[in-house]
C-alpha cells in the first residue's frame, strides 16, 4: 500500500508542503545579510532555539532510521538514545554558554570560527572546517536517503527517484531562505512532531495490544526472541557501549546543534534549555520506541509481512495502522524533519566552504551570501551520490556522520573551551586524528574498489567512530603535554572563565 491509495495522506502532505513553502518565501524576504543567512540574525528566543536544536538533531535518522534500526537490532538500538538523559545539560554546562558569549564578543558564525578563535589559529579553524564538510556530506546523505525512502513509500517510483526529487526541493528551499527558513521550519516541524509522536505512540501501543503484550509477543516469537529485548541481545556489548559513548560524548562536537546556540538572543535563557531541549527530544523518541517495538510485534503476530527493508518500518506502520489524516501529518512532519535538518546542514556546509576554508587560507570570499547559495546545490548533489554509494541503513549512515563530527571536533571544543592548557597544535592533531581515522576505518571496512586492501583489524562489533573518538581525545592530551602553552587573547580567556 502506498500513500496514493489513501487520498487523505496526500492531502495532509500537500497542506504541509504549502506551509513550508510559505515559511521559505517569508524567510527569504527577511534574509538580507550573511548574519541572517548563517545565524538567523542572533535574535531567537528560548523555545525557537531549543526546538530548532532538537529538530536539527532529530530528523530522518530518528523518525525513519530509528524504527528501522530497532527492527534490525532490537532494543540495543536504544543505546543511541539513552545518553539524551544528560546530553542537553552537558551541552549547556560545557559549551552552549561559552559559544553564545563568544558570539557576543566576536563576529562568530560557525563552529570552525569558534575553534579558530579559541586557539588563535587559522590552521585549527581550517581543519575543523574540513571535518565539517566531510560530516555534512554524510549527514546530508542520510537525510536525502530518508527522503527517498519516504517518497517511495508515499508515491512509489523507487528510492533513487525520491532522492533526486528530494535534492531539488531541499536545494530550492535552502537557497531561498538560509538559516532563517531552517529555524522557523524547525519550530513548526518540532511542534508538529512532538504532537505526532504522542499520537503515533498511542496507536503503536493500541495496535500491539499494550506495551506488556508487545514485548511478550516479541520475546516469544521465533523470528525475534527474548534477546531482542535485552540491551545487547543481538549485537556485542562493544557495539552498544560504542553507541553510548559516541552519542553521549560526541554531542559536544555536533555543529548543527552547537550552531543554534549562537542564535539565542539572551544567553541567560539557557537556564531552561536542558529541560526544553531534552524534554522535546524525549517526546519525539516515542516514535522510535513505539514503532520500533510495535512493528516486530505485528510481524511476530502475523499481522504484518516481514519487512524487506528495515527502514520501511515507520512508513509501513503509518500507512497501515494509523488514520489517514494522522499518517499524512506524520509523514509530512517527517518530511519536515528531514528538510529542516538538511537545510541546517546545507547552511553549515556552505559556511565551511565559502567562509571558513577560504579564511583559513587567507583568501576570504567577497560575496559570501551569493557563494553560499551556490555551494548548497553542489553539497546536496555530492551528498546524494555519497548516500547512494554507501548503500546501508539510514541510521548507520547517520551514525558514521555523527561519529565524524564527534571524533574530529569534540575533544578540541569540549576540553579546549574548559582547559586553558590545550594548545593549537594539540587541537589540530586531534581534529586530524579523529576525522582521518574515522574515514580510513569506514573506507577500509566498506570499499569494494581495491580488493587487495585489508579490512580494518577491528575486534567484532567495535564501532570505528568510537575508536576514533577515544583516539582523538588521547592525541589531544598527549600533544598538549608535549607542546608549550599558547597565549590566550583576553576576550577568549574571559569567555572561558564564565
Amino acid at each position: 500500500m502506498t500513500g496514493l491509495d489513501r487520498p487523505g495522506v496526500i492531502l495532509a502532505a500537500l497542506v504541509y508542503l504549502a506551509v513550508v513553502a510559505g515559511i521559505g518565501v517569508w524567510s527569504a524576504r527577511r534574509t538580507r545579510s550573511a548574519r541572517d543567512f548563517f545565524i538567523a540574525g542572533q535574535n531567537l528566543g528560548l523555545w525557537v532555539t531549543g526546538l530548532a536544536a532538537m529538530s536539527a538533531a532529530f530528523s530522518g535518522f530518528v523518525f525513519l532510521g530509528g524504527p528501522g534500526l530497532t527492527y534490525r537490532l532490537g532494543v540495543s538500538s536504544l543505546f543511541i538514545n539513552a545518553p539524551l538523559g544528560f546530553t542537553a545539560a552537558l551541552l549547556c554546562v560545557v559549551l552552549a554558554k561559552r559559544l553564545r558569549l563568544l558570539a557576543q564578543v566576536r563576529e562568530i558564525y560557525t563552529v570552525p570560527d569558534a575553534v579558530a578563535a579559541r586557539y588563535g589559529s587559522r590552521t585549527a579553524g581550517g581543519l575543523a572546517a574540513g571535518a565539517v564538510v566531510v560530516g555534512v556530506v554524510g549527514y546530508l546523505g542520510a537525510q536525502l536517503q530518508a527522503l527517498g525512502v519516504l517518497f517511495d513509500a508515499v508515491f512509489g517510483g523507487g528510492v533513487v527517484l525520491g532522492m533526486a526529487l528530494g535534492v531539488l526541493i531541499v536545494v530550492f528551499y535552502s537557497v531561498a531562505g538560509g538559516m532563517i527558513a531552517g529555524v522557523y521550519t524547525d519550530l513548526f516541524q518540532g511542534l508538529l512532531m512532538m504532537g505526532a509522536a504522542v499520537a503515533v505512540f498511542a496507536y503503536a501501543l493500541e495496535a500491539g495490544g499494550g506495551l506488556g503484550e508487545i514485548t511478550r509477543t516479541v520475546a516469544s516469537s521465533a523470528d525475534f526472541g527474548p534477546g531482542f529485548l535485552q540491551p545487547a541481545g543481538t549485537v556485542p556489548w562493544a557495539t552498544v557501549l560504542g553507541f553510548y559513548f559516541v552519542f553521549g560524548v560526541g554531542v559536544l562536537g555536533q555543529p548543527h546543534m552547537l550552531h543554534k546556540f549562537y542564535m539565542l538572543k539572551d544567553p541567560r535563557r539557557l537556564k531552561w534549555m536542558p529541560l526544553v531541549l531534552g524534554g522535546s527530544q524525549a517526546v519525539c523518541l516515542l516514535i522510535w520506541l513505539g514503532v520500533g517495538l510495535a512493528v516486530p510485534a505485528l510481524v511476530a503476530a502475523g499481522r504484518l509481512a516481514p519487512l524487506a527493508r528495515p527502514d520501511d518500518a515507520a512508513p509501513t506502520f503509518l500507512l497501515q495502522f494509523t488514520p489517514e489524516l494522522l499518517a499524512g501529518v506524520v509523514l509530512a512532519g517527517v518530511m519536515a524533519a528531514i528538510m529542516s535538518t538538511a537545510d541546517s546542514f546545507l547552511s553549515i556546509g556552505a559556511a565551511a566552504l565559502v567562509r571558513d576554508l577560504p579564511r583559513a587560507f587567507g583568501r576570504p570570499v567577497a560575496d559570501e551570501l551569493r557563494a553560499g547559495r551556490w555551494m548548497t546545490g553542489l553539497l546536496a548533489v555530492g551528498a546524494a551520490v555519497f548516500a547512494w554509494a554507501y548503500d546501508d541503513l539510514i541510521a548507520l549512515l547517520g551514525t558514521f556522520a555523527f561519529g565524524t563530527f564527534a571524533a574530529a571536533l569534540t575533544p578540541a571544543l569540549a576540553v579546549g573551551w574548559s582547559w586553558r592548557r590545550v594548545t593549537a597544535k594539540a587541537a589540530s592533531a586531534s581534529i586530524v586524528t579523529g576525522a582521518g581515522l574515522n574515514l580510513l576505518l569506514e573506507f577500509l571496512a566498506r570499499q569494494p574498489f581495491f580488493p587487495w586492501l585489508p579490512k580494518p583489524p577491528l575486534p567484532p562489533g567495535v564501532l570505528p567512530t568510537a575508536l576514533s573518538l577515544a583516539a582523538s581525545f588521547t592525541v589531544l592530551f598527549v600533544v598538549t603535554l608535549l607542546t608549550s602553552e599558547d597565549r590566550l587573547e583576553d576576550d577568549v580567556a574571559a569567555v572561558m572563565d564564565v
Partner: protein
Amino acid sequence: MSPGPQSKSLSVLALAVLAIGSPLLLVAFWVGGPVGTAVAALLVGLLPAALFALGAGSKLHRLRRRLVLWLLLLALSGGVLAVYGTASTDLAQVWLAGFPLPTALLIYGVGLGMLIATGAFYAAVFDRLGIDREELERLERIASPPADRDGAGG
C-alpha cells in the same frame, strides 16, 4: 573571580579521568572480553561525568550543597555499568514496567530519570554555575567592536 580549592581539585580530577580514561577506553574496546567490556561500561559513563565536572569546574565553589552534584555524577558514571551488571546475571530475566530489568534501567533510569535530574539540577544552579549579569557586563567591557575581529583573531 578565582576558583576555590575544591573547584580546582575537581577540575584536576576530571582532567585526570579524561586523560587516563580515553586511552584506557581505546584499549578496552580493542581487548574486549569480560574485563575489557566491564572497563568500557564504566568508562563510557565516567567520561561524560568528567566532562560535566570540567565544564563547570571554575564555578563549583559557588555551590552550597555539593552532595546533589556528587550524587548526579555518581549516577551518571554508574548508570551503564548497572545495566551491564544486571544484564550479566539472572536479574536479566526479571521484568519491570514492560521490559527486562536491564532494559528498564536503561530506558527509565539512564534515559528518562537522568533527563529530569540533570535538567532540573541545571535550572536550579544556573545562577551560580551558569551566567550572571556581572559576567555579561564584564564581557561587554572586554569586547572590542565585533566588526574589528573575526574567528582567528587575525
